[in-house]
């Protein structure tokens, strides 16, 4: 079924650990996005990609990095997690411009 998938959904890790949040979409979308959202707060764009080998920083500065080696895959990596990285991370994608953006279910990250 065409969708956008995020794993893990929930993760608790210790400070200093490296973590990769996975995002895959099976809709053939060229554009993909990562948003960060604290509970009850606004969504902040932290990374986006227009296609393979294209990545850009978003509006909110983030210590995370992303890669886009394949069209369907847009993983986000934190090399050394800190408690300040505790948040929900939402992946999204869309085809072309002006079309609907589809969101994944989100990954809840807690760093202790």
């Amino acid at each position, binding site marked *: 079924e065409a969708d956008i998938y995020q794993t893990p959904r929930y993760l608790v890790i210790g400070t200093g650990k490296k973590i990769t949040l996975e995002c895959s979409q099976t809709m053939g979308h060229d554009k993909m996005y990562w948003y960060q959202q604290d509970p009850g707060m*606004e*969504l902040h*764009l932290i990374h986006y990609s227009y296609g393979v080998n294209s990545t850009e920083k978003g509006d909110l500065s983030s210590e995370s990095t992303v890669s886009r080696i394949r069209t369907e895959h847009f993983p986000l990596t934190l090399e050394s997690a800190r408690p300040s990285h505790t948040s929900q991370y*939402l992946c999204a994608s869309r085809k072309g*411009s002006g079309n609907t953006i589809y969101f994944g279910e989100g990954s809840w990250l807690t760093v202790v």
Partner: protein
Amino acid sequence: AQRVTQPEKLLSVFKGAPVELKCNYSYSGSPELFWYVQYSRQRLQLLLRHISRESIKGFTADLNKGETSFHLKKPFAQEEDSAMYYCALSGHNFGNEKLTFGTGTRLTIIP
């Protein structure tokens, strides 16, 4: 820079009463505006977009370029409308197609 402002963080309305969720934007070019909704325990999903000019679940929104607004309206609120609503803006030009969200309004419908 593109910016979306939703002045109300919380809004409570009685069932059957009209609803209006405010959204103002700033953008130098010709924007595309959206309303997204997040129901409890569900993912964020598109409610409507201004270029479609359609009504979804009884909601409508008109783009007012003079007032740079895109308010969401429904004449008669229903309990299932309780959710978090986000206004969002996207540019058209290549290189400026990122989607910027407002801070969101939590709508509660009082039975």
